[in-house]
């Protein structure tokens, strides 16, 4: 009973951090809580949010995906290339693009699962190689000139709610559903917690890894498409460094990097915290060098606090 309370409190703690930040930023600049700004903020983090679903699964397995940023870039380029240089139908381009990103994820899965490489190395290799490929395809130049229709994913609205925010919300819902209601979710926790035991319980761990990396690739691809639509221009470096932003969202959200523990709701909070920080600090007119420091310190404090809690509880 007591342990349940402690756990719930822990899961809630990250929301308290979020509330605290919101209060601070609101005091500094009341515009922060303007509904308009909140929607802007949500739209700004939508790409992180979407990509974080797959990253959450990967991290739950105790692995990591450093290729997310490159997949976003690569997808940016090929989707733009399909539509602009090949004049492909928008939907077809999107489907092919998502397919491609999933296949890159499968490649990660292959290296991690079949070859047995540590995820950090495998996905870093993919990151490096596909960055080069994206640059070759684009020749280093941005690709633009999409149809108006394509703008809807990143710039459209349903009522007053921006479409990317809706996509993000749907992704979070889907992620939460997969984790809590399907057997895949149970498997992720089992594999992340004790891979040997999971294997001997009949879980095809290899396939689960393929699946999870493919999912991670897929969501990175989706984030890439939303980004492309949002900025209306495909750049081969668009996703550079995104993986760490996404990892930060996930880890802030309380997902254990050693695998086996974490919740989707925490990741939602983690994502919002990053959004609030990025948005709020600009509203507060904080020097961009100082912003780096704040980001580092917040990450250290949030995760550090969590770790100290855990340590204390363990004794």
């Amino acid at each position: 009973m007591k342990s349940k309370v402690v756990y719930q409190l822990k899961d809630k703690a990250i929301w308290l951090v979020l509330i605290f930040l919101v209060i601070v930023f609101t005091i500094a600049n009341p515009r922060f809580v303007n509904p308009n700004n909140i929607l802007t903020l949500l739209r700004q983090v939508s790409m992180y949010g979407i990509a974080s679903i797959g990253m959450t699964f990967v991290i739950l397995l105790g692995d990591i995906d450093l290729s997310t940023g490159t997949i976003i870039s690569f997808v940016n380029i090929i989707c733009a290339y399909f539509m602009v240089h090949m004049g492909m139908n928008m939907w077809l381009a999107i489907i092919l693009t998502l397919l491609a990103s999933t296949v890159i994820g499968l490649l990660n899965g292959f290296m991690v699962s079949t070859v047995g490489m540590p995820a950090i190395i495998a996905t870093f290799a993919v990151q490096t190689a596909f960055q080069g490929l994206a640059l070759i395809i684009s020749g280093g130049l941005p690709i633009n000139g999409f149809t108006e229709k394509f703008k809807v994913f990143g710039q459209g609205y349903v009522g007053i709610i921006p479409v990317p925010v809706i996509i993000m919300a749907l992704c979070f819902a889907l992620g939460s559903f997969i984790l809590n209601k399907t057997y895949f979710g149970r498997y992720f926790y089992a594999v992340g917690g004790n891979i040997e035991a999971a294997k001997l319980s009949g879980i095809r761990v290899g396939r689960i890894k393929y699946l999870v990396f493919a999912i991670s690739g897929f969501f990175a691809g989706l984030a890439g498409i939303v980004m492309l639509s949002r900025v209306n221009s495909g750049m081969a470096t668009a996703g550079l460094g995104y993986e760490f932003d996404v990892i930060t969202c996930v880890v802030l959200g309380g997902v254990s990097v050693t695998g086996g523990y974490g919740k989707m709701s925490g990741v939602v909070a983690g994502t919002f915290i990053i959004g609030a920080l990025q948005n709020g600090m600009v509203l507060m007119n904080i020097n961009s060098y100082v912003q780096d420091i704040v980001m580092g310190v917040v990450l250290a404090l949030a995760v550090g606090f969590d770790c100290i809690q855990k340590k204390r509880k363990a004794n």
Partner: protein
Amino acid sequence: GKSDDGGSADGDSDKDSGGKEKIGITIQSLKNDYWAGVMGKLEELLKEEGYEYTLVDCSDNAPTQVSQIENFITSGCDLIMVHPSDAEAVEGICGEALDAGIKVMCWDDPMENTTANWILDNTALGRDIGEATAEFINANYTKDAPAKVCTIGYPSTKVLLERETGIKEGLEEFCDDGVFEIVASVEGIEADKALANVETVLQAHPDCTIFAGVGAGAMIGANEALLQKFGGAGKIPENVGVITTDVTMQQLESLKAGDEAVRAIVGFEGSSLDTAKACLEMYKRILSGEDFSGDKNVVRPTRAITVDDVDDIIAGM
């Protein structure tokens, strides 16, 4: 746009509360000595004149820049200056800013949804670098013993890619016939990477003597490599040279020293201060409500800085 009412209404209340106009500035990268230098001066000027401003960089990431402009709109800026990571990417949001009654200025690109553009044609800038290099080559080499040239670029960034292309065009255009040959093209935006790559090029082509690059890092790295190859300042042959753009103190000092490999720097208005002043001038023109609808593209001048006028420039850094 969704931000219309909120944005402009709040903007008014800000002005009522006394201060001068509020300016939001987002540039590609502040982690770069050229930009840090110019922006440092611009900040001084803005402070002096009592402007309220926010200066951020987007780490060369278009979506981040879009977000930053969104935040500027929210925070009620009167003028947004964008130095776009990808001009096309910020067109949409700049349009929203205009809709919200905010003036928008673009640094570098001839953008659509802006009040005015302060433009620099990177291909043209590259061509100027090529021209300056060509002058040096023409003066030192002949058809029988053509110059071996290495270009130092950074093809992952659009503007730098354009610059590098411009350099090659400029060389073709301004060099005498058959007086040069490009033997290598390497990457080098950071000094250490440029240094390593130039060292390697010097191994592959020991007779490579001309290095034309896209920025300060390329110059510093190439200059160091040559200094090491020839055994220090003063020992570098007359016909060896490094020519790039960007105006930073270290480049200028190397140029001024005269006995290093730096031969010319293609600059803009002059010193960082000159550039900052010119930029502020643009702000004032835009904020004063000047009508740019005729031709909103204000082209920045470029010029080659050589040993002769280096002192004037240094004074304004």
